[in-house]
């Protein structure tokens, strides 16, 4: 065999050819280097987001980005303001005639971006399409309390409800589209190029990573000064590098706290931090033999140094929470106890609970603390565990994959856990979070947010009553009472209100960092010359 190879001049050509082919493989690369880069127009502002929307049809949208971008093109009767309240947007005003009838009055002279007038007929068609099972909107169930929608005249829409629901105006944020576009056969067109009455129109989107929004010259508030490009950049490091390169002008909310100090040091960037609607909270398993005792939960709350977590872990972009609602929220209850760190107080409570410090270095009690595998969240949990250790409470941190974690929490298979409500808008959230009907079980198909398995009939009654009231002041009073009960009972400890963060290039003006992450301020953003 070797002999054969030796005398036949074998096909060394194959090897040579493959070596020659290698540069050929590189041809596209060389071509790429030779091509010049396209410059973008000067009046375009580029926003980077972390995941592309699945649709721009607000009726079908589930993801936060999808809803936020869709609202720029197809706003609804109402929008949510900085205090979490529904305020008129396409509507000029709205009222509850009685607890089951809501009337919305449209602004005069509204037109869609295609020039056709926007009247109550379009609003009715939009809502009827959402409620129509044939469309398959994922919001149908949530709106099923709407018994009928009618248009008595071109500027008036009347909603009749099958049960009283005070948060109805929050659901009226669903984007209004022309009557002719509401049908099932128009779904594909509405997904990529929705027609609405918003400040922007979709100029280009193929369902991929880049969305181009152009100013809508027919917008009732006047066209925005800049066009907007929304780019998906999935990796956080890359997002920031794009910002430093100048290819991206603006990040809203897609920056994690550990990066803030470095970004603040960067001369070319501006970091804006404002109150955010996200709140992290510590869950107690209220059916656990030890944690079912209020004084133990109280002791754990007192053992935590949440100021330190806000300062060091969240780099100052957070405040110590006393409720799920931030102080700026319309339903936030004043005068709730703050619970600053009090190790002596925690020790007294634990002594009284029969969990003494035996003086031999062994902990007063042992618990597990579950959190997600996200590195930042895990590091917060570890910091909390070391704070608890100073009070003689041993908390073993278990970082778990998201699906597994949620599975465990739903089934009550935990003692302590840290979670975050990403956007607290309407106080009816308390019903989802604390009502005994919201305890995940077979009966709720494992839905519901009361994973603490907290049961309090007085609170249940209060929350059931509050959601039926239409008057904001009456609602506020009920929800304040509910927050007082929750602060006293402490089924879960609200930890930190986490700030909303915006990072932008210095040449940008008009950006408002919205607590809920709304992108509405893109309609005012512009580049300032000279910076």
């Amino acid at each position, binding site marked *: 065999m070797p002999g054969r190879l030796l005398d036949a001049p074998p096909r060394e050509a194959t090897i040579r050819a493959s070596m020659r082919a*290698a540069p050929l493989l590189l041809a*596209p690369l060389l071509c790429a280097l030779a091509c010049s880069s396209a410059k973008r127009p000067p009046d375009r502002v580029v926003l980077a987001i972390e995941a592309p929307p699945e649709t721009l049809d607000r009726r079908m949208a*589930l993801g936060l980005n999808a809803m936020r971008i869709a609202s720029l093109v197809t706003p609804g009767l109402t929008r949510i303001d900085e205090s979490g309240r529904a305020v008129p947007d396409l509507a000029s005003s709205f009222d509850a005639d009685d607890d089951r009838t809501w009337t919305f009055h449209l602004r005069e002279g509204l037109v869609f971006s295609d020039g056709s007038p926007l009247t109550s007929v379009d609003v009715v068609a939009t809502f009827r399409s959402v409620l129509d099972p044939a469309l398959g909107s994922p919001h149908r169930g949530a709106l099923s309390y709407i018994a009928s929608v009618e248009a008595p005249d071109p500027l008036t829409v009347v909603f009749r409800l099958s049960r009283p629901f005070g948060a109805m105006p929050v659901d009226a944020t669903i984007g209004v589209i022309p009557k002719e576009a509401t049908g099932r056969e128009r779904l594909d067109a509405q*997904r990529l190029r929705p027609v609405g009455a918003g400040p922007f129109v979709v100029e280009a989107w193929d369902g991929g990573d880049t969305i181009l929004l152009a100013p809508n010259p027919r917008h009732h508030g006047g066209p925005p000064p800049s066009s907007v490009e929304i780019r998906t950049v*999935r990796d956080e490091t890359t997002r920031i590098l794009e910002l430093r390169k100048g290819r991206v002008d603006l990040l809203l909310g897609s920056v994690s706290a550990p990066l803030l100090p470095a970004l603040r040091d960067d001369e070319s960037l501006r970091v804006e931090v404002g109150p955010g609607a996200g709140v992290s909270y510590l869950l107690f398993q209220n059916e656990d033999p030890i944690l079912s005792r209020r004084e133990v939960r109280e002791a754990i709350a007192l053992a935590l140094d949440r100021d330190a977590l806000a300062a060091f872990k969240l780099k100052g972009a957070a405040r110590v929470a006393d409720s799920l609602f931030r102080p700026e929220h319309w339903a936030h209850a004043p005068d709730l106890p703050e619970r600053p760190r009090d190790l002596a107080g925690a020790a007294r409570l634990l002594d009284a609970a029969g969990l003494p410090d035996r003086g031999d270095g062994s902990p007063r009690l042992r618990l597990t603390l579950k959190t997600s595998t996200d590195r930042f969240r895990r590091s917060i949990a570890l910091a909390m565990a070391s704070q608890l250790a100073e009070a003689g409470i041993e908390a073993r941190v278990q970082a778990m994959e998201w699906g597994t974690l949620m599975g465990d929490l739903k089934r009550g298979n935990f003692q302590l856990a840290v979670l975050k409500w990403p956007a607290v808008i309407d106080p009816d959230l308390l019903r989802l979070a604390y009502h005994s009907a919201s305890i995940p079980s077979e009966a709720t198909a494992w839905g519901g947010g009361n994973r603490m398995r907290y049961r309090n009939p007085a609170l249940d009654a209060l929350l059931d009553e509050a959601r039926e009231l239409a008057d904001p002041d009456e609602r506020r009073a009920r929800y304040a009472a509910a927050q007082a009960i929750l602060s006293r009972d402490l089924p879960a400890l609200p930890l930190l209100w986490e700030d909303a963060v915006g990072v932008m290039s210095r040449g940008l003006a008009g950006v408002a960092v919205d607590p809920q992450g709304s992108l509405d301020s893109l309609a005012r953003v512009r580049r300032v010359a000279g910076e």
Partner: protein
Amino acid sequence: MNRILRRTGGALFAALGAVLLVSIFLDLVPGDPVDSILGEQAQEADRAALRQALHLDEPLPARLWIFARDAATLELRSSVPPFQDRVFDRIGKALPNTALLAGCALGIALLVAVPLGLLAGWKPGGKIDAAASGFAVLGVAMPRIWLGPLLILFFAIRLDWLPVSGLEEPAGLVLPAFTLGIALAAFLARMIRASLLEATSEDYVRTARAKGLHERTVILKHALRNAMLPVLTVLGLQLGALLGGAVITEKVFNYPGMGTLLLQAIDRRDYDMARACVLAFTLAYVLVSLLTDLAYAAADPRVREGR
């Protein structure tokens, strides 16, 4: 011919197996897909509706049948609301990008690895060998998630030559190709060196030298040709892996390829998209290994003649 038919049959079988396995694993993943898709504020009615739309109330075999039916008619759509993304349109856009990236990375790797491995294997223990070994260790050990941003910092930001990410400009191909190519080059250089060393200790090389052939002829014509066989195998495997979407590199560079598509499908719990991606990967992998086989036959008469 017969062999190719046999291999193609095997390929289809492998693809089916992969899809089946992925479906079973997706089923075993803890957590409810309805939860991750709808969010927890969702109403029971909406949850039930989605469950039905996803056929989650049906057993796995039934779901697989539906998937196979839709895939066969190319009508397969994304399995998250609004169920509108056409799966094969997406793959059709992503796959050429990934193939382009894989090809460029492979080109870079070969250009670097072949001379380097050759020089290192020629004079083992020499300075070039030491340098090549150093490069190889560095290249293999450097995580792409770190090398990528490093290259961006230097070439895209400091020097301002290239875009940071994306493929809107063709120049966006350069950095990800190098990120992938460098690691592969390091690995290949080591392979070539090792198998060249092995080949040069064979009898036929000694014979060639004894015949008084020029050293260059001995190495290039006799030793290297034999040494390339194991390298070809590894090359095929690596190319298969590259076509499978270099997930991390694609994510760092926001490259619109298969890796990004798969990651997004997993994030959204888009089962059908994920399944179809895996199907595409498997087919690409099998195709590459088929080609490797053919290349093997071209390079080695023993294989060609079935000995």
